[in-house]
């Protein structure tokens, strides 16, 4: 085994890790099959130059993704390697952070040597982006398990009443591309939830039957749905398998990769409590439109341009100052409808299952 040389700059959060008391809020939003198919073709299904023995396809039926925010008050590595971390052999790993990410489920089919698809597939999730407010998490997730994570300023405030949430994320970017534009701290995402769903989860499903298959997929994760867990053993919840594309550039030709692989990982939530279902009619999800995030909004959310003008009402510059006001909110926005939303507190364990394919490893 070739030993990784530990250094001051690699005091990272090593997998597997465990988080206690994590507070998760998830919102189901509609995506389009065309965009999911395009995403899979661009990142997973091509020849690079060899093709992975997998082919990823959108799930049948209506397409949804989960926009999820989470506050981790205490995360620490459970890796034996963490106990030997660095030349000092100390364990530098307890940290806290906030994150937000988009994930959607797809079907991963095996491909035979004859290039035939196995009909039976495995539902896995892909994460096109994640924002975290902790550098160590950003470096670890990018460099170890391959999540496309970016550093952001994140403000998350759970309201005094159940079902209330105010979440803001911003990153350094450029509002309007031009050779003379300057980078600044730009607002990227604003989410508010105004209260508990008066219908409850089951009635909400009846009112929005498109969600049924998606929520069953999500329910298998054990990530939420206390109502649906009754009578189901803990072992029935194997957790969410996430597939990430882990890749690094060649330093001479930046268009080439010196490493490209698909990494499978898994997050399992346990000790789930304080489950709240948000009233989707009182949820606001708004992506702020800057040129720095426009490509992401076009290719993932199928938004060709903003669909509403100006900043969200809570970030009106004439209003009272808030915690996220060092971000520039003076942009138009893409308002996305939440179809379903929930929140819960849990302990989370995260582990890498394996690197399921490394490109170019043929000889």
């Amino acid at each position, binding site marked *: 085994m*070739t030993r990784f040389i530990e250094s001051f700059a690699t005091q990272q959060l090593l997998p597997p890790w465990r988080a206690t008391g994590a507070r998760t809020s998830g919102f189901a939003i509609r995506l389009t099959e065309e965009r999911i198919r395009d995403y899979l073709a661009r*990142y997973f299904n091509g020849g690079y130059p060899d093709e992975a023995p997998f082919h990823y396809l959108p799930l049948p039926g209506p397409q949804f993704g989960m926009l999820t925010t989470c506050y981790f008050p205490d995360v620490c590595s459970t890796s034996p390697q963490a106990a030997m971390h660095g030349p000092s052999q100390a364990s530098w790993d307890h940290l806290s952070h906030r994150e937000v990410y988009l994930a959607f489920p797809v079907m991963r089919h095996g491909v035979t040597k004859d290039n035939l698809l196995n009909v039976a597939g495995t539902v896995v999730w892909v994460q096109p982006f994640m924002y975290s407010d902790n*550098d160590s998490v950003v470096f670890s997730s990018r460099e170890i398990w391959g999540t496309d994570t*970016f550093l952001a300023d994140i403000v998350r405030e759970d309201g005094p009443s159940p079902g209330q949430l105010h979440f803001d994320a911003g990153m350094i970017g450029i509002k309007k591309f031009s*050779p003379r534009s300057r980078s600044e701290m730009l607002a990227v995402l604003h989410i508010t939830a105004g209260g508990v769903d008066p219908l409850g989860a089951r009635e909400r499903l009846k009112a929005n039957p498109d969600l049924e298959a998606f929520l069953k997929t999500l329910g298998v994760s054990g990530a939420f749905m206390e109502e649906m867990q009754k009578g189901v053993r803990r072992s029935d919840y194997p957790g969410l398998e996430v597939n990430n594309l882990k890749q690094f550039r060649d*330093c001479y030709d930046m*268009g080439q990769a010196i*490493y490209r692989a698909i990494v499978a990982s898994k997050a399992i939530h346990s000790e789930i409590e304080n489950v709240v279902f948000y009233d989707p009619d009182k949820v606001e999800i708004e992506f702020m439109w800057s040129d720095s995030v426009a490509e992401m909004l076009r290719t993932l959310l199928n938004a060709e341009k903003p669909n509403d003008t100006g900043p969200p009402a809570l970030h009106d510059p004439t209003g009272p100052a808030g915690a996220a006001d060092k971000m520039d909110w003076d942009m138009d926005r893409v308002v996305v409808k939440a179809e379903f939303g929930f929140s819960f507190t849990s302990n989370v364990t995260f582990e*890498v299952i394996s690197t399921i394919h490394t490109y170019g490893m043929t000889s």
Partner: protein
Amino acid sequence: MSPEAIPYVQSAASQEVPPPYHFPGVTVNAFVWEANLPQVQVYCDRFFNLGDAQERGFTYRPAAAWPYAILLVIDYPVMLSASPVPENVGNETPYGNRGIVSQREVFVALPVVRFGGAGRLLSDTNLEFALPFIVVGEPMSAVCGREMLGLEKLRAEITIGESEFPDSFRGRVGLPGWATDEEGEMQRMLPFLEVDTGPAVPTWRGSAKETSPWTLLRSRTAGNLIGAMATASEFVGTVSAGLVPTAMQTVSLKQFRDARNPGKALYQALISCRSKYTSIENFEFYNENDVYIKFYTNGSLAEIIPFVDIASGGEKIADEQSIAFRPKAAYRFNATIDFDNMRTLHTFPVDRGHGLPPTKATSDLISPWLRPWQGFFGRPTP
């Protein structure tokens, strides 16, 4: 791109801008002290001299002829992509037309010499700079530096300004870290580096006149000479005896962890890049007797201290939380910096498992001075 090349697919969410870069109007504050050479050798052995010396064909050692560490605090008001060819960005805006990023950067550079192995001592020997400590304020700069170039970049809170007196310098670096090694210690922002100077000389403030060799350069005659000739970077490089690194060739270990077994490396290579300083002007010294450099040493910060510490026997104040010392020389200047010439010097063989043989070692160690001649007379690159 060769048929077997593996394409890198930049994600739609990414803000990465790959090098080369052009940085005009940069302000550099620099501080020089005697390096702890045994620790520089430890650094070389740990990060560069991997495996068997004969097999890899080179050995890194401290540059005994210039045994100093240089702390550079750099303010980049304008950072531009300088890619000479259009990037593969599809219908998106080319990097160079997207706008201007600004940031601050702080690093310690240790001059090291790569000695070529038997029969290649002349062709493969080169002076390079190791950067054991480098922090930046801009997150994507940290990501690009780490993933593309193998630089050990961390993101930090960097504040710079004036110290107590006008025309002086004050720099502060805060890093996320762990203050103690006690179980359950939470990561938080910790102070790591403090630098304070008196006013740039000549000044009537401050300590007794300095005693370093650089005093000579601040005589009225020498000062005028530097002022007049400062735009000729070669001249500054000569007259300042290497204080202004007109072309700093760096070396760094680029490596990545295996996802399932993070103690295992799946790629290890030495990467070199060049920072070329031109249009150097406004070169001014600080009185080194009025410069105070302090590194905090508690908890996780302690791991880096041996490599940035002053040579043993040097005057320093040390307690359980910090070390502090005065440099041999301190100065500032403005310059334009071009960052380019990225190349892989050496790829170390890495075990792949799965019954596959280790990856093959590759080397491209020809010294920069010889490269044009090698290209002219040498065998063509396959």
